[in-house]
């Protein structure tokens, strides 16, 4: 076994150089992937996840149609090269099935499924690289992909992981930290501050849990800020490309398709 890596050293730095409450670098890419109606590639540090959304469209599996709502179908694929050692995971792997079931039950109450009866919304999650915070990245990517696909949601769903190292709480854990300290993954709807998803698999004292729980709910709001910025910048880029927005910096505004009246609303 190699040398023990310090989770949090004397100077307050973690093994990857971050501070206690510092989140990893987030990159969000909302460009179109293939034929998908909506897609997003989200990275949290070294964890890369790609989500493609197809739908709402006619249900492929007739037996699963619901007469008054859309059916949300989630499939997760973990690439064999995603972890340090190459390991092929079968589709029936219980951990992957659980991941898919968690994503499905997280988004079912958030997507306004009653607007699309008897249809199906397919969510395909592809994990490209894993370095801790897998569920967190999947949920964030799914939210962005759904927004990108134009599927109406009640609110964003922002997820973050938190852990406790002896008595110090940490946020956004890497794989090394996740394997070592008790950790919890939380997904929050920022408008109301309510918690949609909460999982913890390791032993943690109730008092410590309260602390990290409150901290993580606040951290999720920070992620919400990033997601909102990304969505807004992509939308403004699309709108400028379509030519229907007034150009910034003056100049004559030419209303080619007579929808200037729309701007009054």
């Amino acid at each position: 076994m190699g040398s023990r890596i310090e989770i949090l050293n004397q100077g307050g730095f973690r093994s990857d150089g971050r501070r206690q409450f510092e989140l990893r670098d987030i990159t969000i890419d909302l460009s179109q992937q293939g034929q998908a109606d909506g897609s997003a590639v989200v990275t949290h540090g070294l964890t890369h996840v790609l989500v493609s959304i197809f739908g709402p469209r006619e249900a492929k599996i007739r037996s699963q149609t619901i007469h008054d709502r859309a059916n949300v179908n989630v499939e997760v694929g973990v690439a064999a090269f995603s972890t340090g050692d190459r390991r092929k995971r079968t589709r029936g792997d219980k951990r992957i099935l659980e991941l898919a079931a968690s994503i499905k039950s997280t988004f079912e109450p958030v997507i306004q499924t009653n607007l699309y009866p008897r249809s199906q919304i397919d969510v395909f999650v592809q994990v490209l690289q894993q370095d801790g915070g897998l569920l967190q990245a999947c949920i964030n990517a799914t939210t962005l992909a759904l927004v990108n696909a134009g599927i109406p949601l009640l609110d964003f769903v922002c997820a973050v992981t938190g852990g406790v190292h002896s008595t110090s709480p940490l946020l956004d854990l890497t794989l090394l930290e996740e394997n070592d300290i008790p950790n919890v993954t939380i997904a929050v709807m920022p408008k109301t501050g309510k918690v949609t998803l909460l999982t913890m698999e390791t032993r943690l004292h109730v008092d410590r849990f309260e602390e990290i729980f409150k901290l993580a709910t606040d951290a999720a709001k920070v992620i919400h800020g990033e997601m909102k910025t990304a969505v807004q910048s992509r939308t403004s880029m699309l709108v400028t490309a379509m030519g229907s927005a007034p150009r910034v910096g003056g100049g004559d505004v030419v209303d080619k398709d007579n929808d200037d009246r729309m701007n009054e609303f």
Partner: protein
Amino acid sequence: MRPPSPSIPEKEFLYTSLKESLRLDGRLPMEIRTPTLIFGDNLGWVECSLGKTRVLAQIEGKMVKPPPERPYEGIITIHSEISPMASSEYEPGRPSDEEVTITRMLDKVLKRSDAVDKESLCILAGQRVWHIRLTLHFLSDAGNMLDCACLAGMVALKHFRRPDVEVIGDEVTLHEPTERAPIPLAIHHTPFCFTFAFFRDPMIPPIIDPSQLEQRLSAGLISIALNAQRELCVLQKLGGVPLDPDEVLKIVTIAVQKAKELNNIVDVRLKEDWEGRHVEVR
């Protein structure tokens, strides 16, 4: 084959009564069904029932060669396939969503939480370790099979006694239970699982230990596994209606109290059974 969805009168009746904190079986919102534990002749055979929900747990131990990456630890495997005997909605072969949830939760509560000390299961490092196999049979589903299964599994682990083994040099001698008294497993802590159901209507309070109908009509479930020492082992809220952080903490506090009560009940039952079984070797 999925059973038909509850009828509208059933739905309305349940929601209306829950708004007045009345449950269909007469329980309080925060009252669990009293668990009944029946022990079989063999050690490690337990049938646990929560009302009409019944789960049978059985433990076997045998000596095997450990995998090369973990030569000092024993192996614990949990087998829990839900057959259509529990309810017609479960199909053999294909794990339904609920089955996956139950299997994963059992894995987290009984294995990942390190309830049983695996190093004590080592007989001869790198050569022989104990392989403890826990098999769960789901006999009947009247709601909340998860809590019942976790309880059955945990009590079976506490009830089981493995044969005594003597190691001299490189030789391993297995003593029959009639020669030497069998030894209990080294259990670090006893996690108990509690499932709470909550509903879309904010006027309806969350309820513990949902029955079949309550589970089907709930808008979300939260499962908490913890031990009597106020340590949370597993916390799982997979989607469902969003909850206020304060509500979650309130539920955790209630679970802490229930864990203490359940721990006492289990201890009393185990002691009763052991008294009846007492065998002295002279």
